[in-house]
């Protein structure tokens, strides 16, 4: 994820992006904002767009509470600056659900109780969605790797693992 950011950061287009309003797609809608190029995506999402489902916690990319999708890849939004994600497709927890109201991953977390205080949950669900989009039936090792950047202090992860298994089941049934 940092690689992506670094690439766009070095491109001349991105370096000049600050002179123009920041433009991206957020949850399927085009967004145009006059923000400085070094503004963190986390602050754009929470403060400028009022999407507070993305949470602020460690601000050093360790906990995953601020995880969003940028072009489908999970990114700690506290580590990404405006210029790095200009013109990209950004999805926050608020944009995960489909028209029916809940994404299968969200339904699975609800049913299995894969959350307690809920503060890590949006970031966790974003990471799980990204994983299952890429790997529909992950091995335990793949699951461990995909979620080891999302800290949860409440559940001990048992409920989260059960939720992911349940989500795989729901998605598979939905696709059958």
């Amino acid at each position, binding site marked *: 994820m940092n690689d992506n950011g670094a690439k766009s950061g070095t491109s001349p287009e991105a370096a000049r992006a600050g002179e123009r309003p920041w433009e991206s797609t957020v949850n399927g809608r085009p967004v145009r904002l006059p923000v400085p190029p070094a503004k963190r995506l986390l602050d754009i999402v929470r403060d400028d767009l009022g999407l507070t489902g993305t949470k602020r916690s460690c601000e050093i990319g360790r906990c995953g509470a601020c995880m969003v999708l940028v072009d489908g890849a999970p990114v700690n939004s506290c580590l990404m600056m405006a210029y790095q994600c200009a013109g990209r497709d950004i999805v926050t927890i608020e944009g995960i659900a489909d028209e029916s109201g809940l994404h299968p991953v969200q339904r699975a977390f609800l049913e299995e109780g894969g*959350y*307690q205080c809920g503060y890590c949950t949006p970031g966790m669900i974003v990471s799980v969605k990204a994983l299952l989009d890429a790997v529909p039936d992950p091995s335990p090792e793949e699951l461990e790797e995909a979620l080891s950047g999302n800290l949860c202090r409440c559940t*001990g992860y048992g409920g989260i693992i059960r939720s992911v298994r349940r989500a795989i089941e729901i998605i598979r049934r939905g696709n059958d």
Partner: protein
Amino acid sequence: MLLNRRNSGDRWRIRPDGPGKVTGRLAYLTDLTAPGMLYGLVLRSPHPHARILSVHTEAARRLPGVAAVLTHRDVPGLNRFGIARQDQPVFCEDRVRYVGDAVAAVAAKTPELARRALALIEVAYEPLPTVDDPELALRPDAPRLHPEGNVLHTKTFRTGDTGPIFARCAHVVEETYVTPRQMHAYMETEGGLFVPGPEGGLTVYAPTQHGRMDRLQLARILALPEERIRVVSSPIGGSFGGKDELNVQPYGALLALATGRPVRIHNSRRESVRAGLKRHPMIIRMKTGTDEKGRILAHRVRIVADTGPYASLGAEVLNFATEHAVSAYRFGCVDAESVSVFTNNGMSGEFRGFGGNQAVFALEGQMDRLADAVGMDPWEFRRLNLKSADDPGPFGQPIAKTDGLAKVWAAVERSRLWRERKAAELSESSETGGAPVPGNCGTQAAVERPPWMKVGIGAAMVMHGAGLGFGLPDPSGGRLALRKDGKIEAAFGFEEFGQGLLATLEQMLIERFGFAAEDVRIVIGDTDAVPDSGSSTASRATSMMWRSLGLLERPFTEKLLRAAAEACGRPARQLGLGAGGIWDRESGERVLTYEALAGRLTEPIVCEAGTSYPVSDTDIVGAHYLYAYAAVAVKVEVDGLTGRVRVLDQFHAVAAGPVMNPQGYLGQIEGGSSMALGYALLEEAVMERGQYVTNNFDTYLIPTIADHAGPVEVMPIEDLPEGDEHGPRGVGEIGSVGLAPAIASAVRHATGVRINRLPIDPALLQEVLPVGETAVMRGER
């Protein structure tokens, strides 16, 4: 029967706060904003101990966009806070005693301006010697941190002179246990929104575990009547005891009142680490002796707790640690002496388990060491010395009788893990001609593992008190009402910080009264809207909701049915409460919806109940009356090359009365055990000369999903003795206690290395040099 979704059937429910949490729609108090709000920041001391020579705020005040800069001169009321003892300065006057001490606070139009304003405040300090070792702080020549000296509190419990008894013991074990400064590491750092009201009032939206206590504390500081302050305290992104004490509230409140504008504060993680509470580091010395057969005759305990610069709940935590250092077993003669000491380290305070975690780690370490000394199986050794159902509590006080200890003991004895350990030992002793060899648990597994990977199984017992204990007011209560819109409103002065309180309350209402979830509206965490329920701490809320609803059931049901009878013209005795409204029990039809009933009322039906947490008939402050019991077995794998310990398999038996909410119960035990795993293997907020070395999650490591391996089985033991009136005991804390000593025990079983310090240092478990076929562990003597 194991607790899981399948075995819970319909009782496994979707939490009422779930949809908001999985969609991100739930607004936490740190997500709130208000038009025209300012951003607050606090200037904290860079020194662990210093005299303040001067504070100049003029430059900061002159900065455009800065609305207020406050110091101790701007506190209208008491410039101190603390739940039990008000000794912590809101703003320091002439001296700072830790790196979180506040000196000034600012409110500005943007976070950037607030930061710049902080940098413009000039404080001149004269550093003073740092007292960073609690044992050195007790020396007569140590710098005095408070006029009364460096002792916050002592606790003594003695039933006689252990000296002569040790002299005639067949086996005596003496050990010093050292426990770390554990951080709560709630994912949501402290913060909130502070909104001034008309006529000098204030609404505080900030997490706490006891809204009324915050209101009382803020009233003192602001010199405002409590009625002018409204505290909205829920929902919370994790607390674990860490947000019970005031944190940012005084600053937000003072800034909002000073500027007349809403003020928002949200701590960075670094500031949260620096200013926030931690679990008390303790040094626990125990000397315990038995007769030849293994019966404990004497138990001596000395605890030194590092409470940091101010009291908070340090005294209460020490009382609890002392009580639990002499719990669960019959000790013969007990001599316990504990002291909680002021230092210039970080603030210590309330943390899930409340001193029991430290004490039980030490106590269970003693049990394992004594069993070895006597030559007994460690679990059998515990059974021999276990308290019986008729025994008094740890301090000799009367307690509610249950046979929880015997039952959780038996559950582990029969568990898959313990049987595996026994089978392995049997096969080994036949292979080696008697002497058990550590580290080859499970013949099958031993074959598959390289020789430097050792496996062991260990177990530990826990007896955990709930409620605030004797000597502290512990009132509670709740209210039920049928409101105009037809909702059954349940109001309690509790908070939801993830434990599942809302779900538990909803489930109790459904199961006790027959309501449907849609019939019910729950109101918590708002001092303007709820009755006094006491704090959401000490594993007490579930008990108190159960008790309050028990008191409310009859009067509320009768009132509803009487009103319904009048409305529908059928006799009240023929009617009953049910899903969606009032039902005719004979015809089986619903005769009136709650909405229709509410519409017929001239005034709402309201019932309120007041109660309080049951206390022991004793005069020992802090002694408990209700206990929950747990036994934990765990299997670990120790890598002799890296010294790392991996938890493979856990079994938890918990005797805490009936399970009110299966998902919540399971979550508390699983989640609590994860905290204990971190405590045992990873977590320590390291301080050097009064400064935090670990400032964020890059160096302070909490368990990740990669640390969670293998099954976690939870077996609730629900039965209580006939006639028990106390119902469910809370399980919010007990899950966080037993796994750490069980891991230490399993590591010993795997490697032969005894653990007396947490978190376990991998260096102790690295094999030094292979000698022949057997690796020699460094700690093995």
